[in-house]
């Protein structure tokens, strides 16, 4: 089976690859957004704690 045949999927290539493509893109976007949200919150909290001169952030340094 050639790569072209594989991608064509017996004429169903468009439906199959769109399905998997859309899901992959959404999963990557979600992972990126969640990671960014977490690191942003972490940075802001650390800044705030430095400003207020207290650190009750035990166990949350990861």
């Amino acid at each position: 089976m050639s790569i072209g045949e594989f991608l064509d999927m017996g004429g169903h290539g468009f439906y199959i690859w769109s399905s998997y493509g859309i899901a992959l893109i959404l999963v990557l976007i979600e992972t990126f957004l969640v990671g960014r949200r977490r690191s942003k919150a972490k940075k802001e909290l650390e800044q705030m704690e430095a400003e207020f001169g207290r650190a009750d952030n035990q166990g949350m340094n990861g």
Partner: protein
Amino acid sequence: MSATRRIPWMKYASASSFYPLANRLAPLFMGLAIVLAVVGLYMGFFVAPVDYQQGNSYRIMFLHVPAAWMSMFIYLLLAMYAIISLVWRVKMADIMAYSLAPTGAMFTFVALVTGALWGRPTWGTYWVWDARLTSELLLLFLYLGYMGLYSAIPDRQRASRAASFLAIVGVVNVPIIYFSVVWWNTLHQGASITFSGGTSMTSVMFTSLLLMTFACWAYTIAVVLRRAQAVILERKKVALWASQISKK
């Protein structure tokens, strides 16, 4: 003596013990998700044979079915956390419910889109207003409604209560989705895997499907743990800010 001290397991419902645990588990489950998906897709595309009825289009199943299952499982989980949060006021339960919603909505959307893309070559149409498809679309609106309600109400406790209530009421939709193919005469095919009758699939197809389902679970655990961590930090920030304001 406080309830937190009396019941040791309550300790694990607190943010400060959850956070470091999530730090260890999230990368583990993300790695697991990638490995499971790679093996599952390899089997699904290179080992599983062409379907004699549907040709290759059935390979969308390895994504569509796990996504649809996740959309329902996650909703049930969300509703369970919503009950715990409403009745016992466990903060971590509210954070978990809130953190599950976007991922549940994502899987619902994937189930709908891949269903449409599978429906076109199989049924000749992307969409039809039958019971299975319509109730799944309603599930998407329930997720969006929960998220929208939560963010629309400025007071967090009130927001949490209203959204939790909506989530709990919406649970009736889950059995409707699941049994819709039995209760109504739908275009959607019936379940290939049933609790009682086993499976009507070849074992390779079934294994790929199972691996993809576990991959989706592992991904969900990883991404929801991370989101819950972000929410904990955000709420800690608000609490810290509030305590500083009250000092002045």
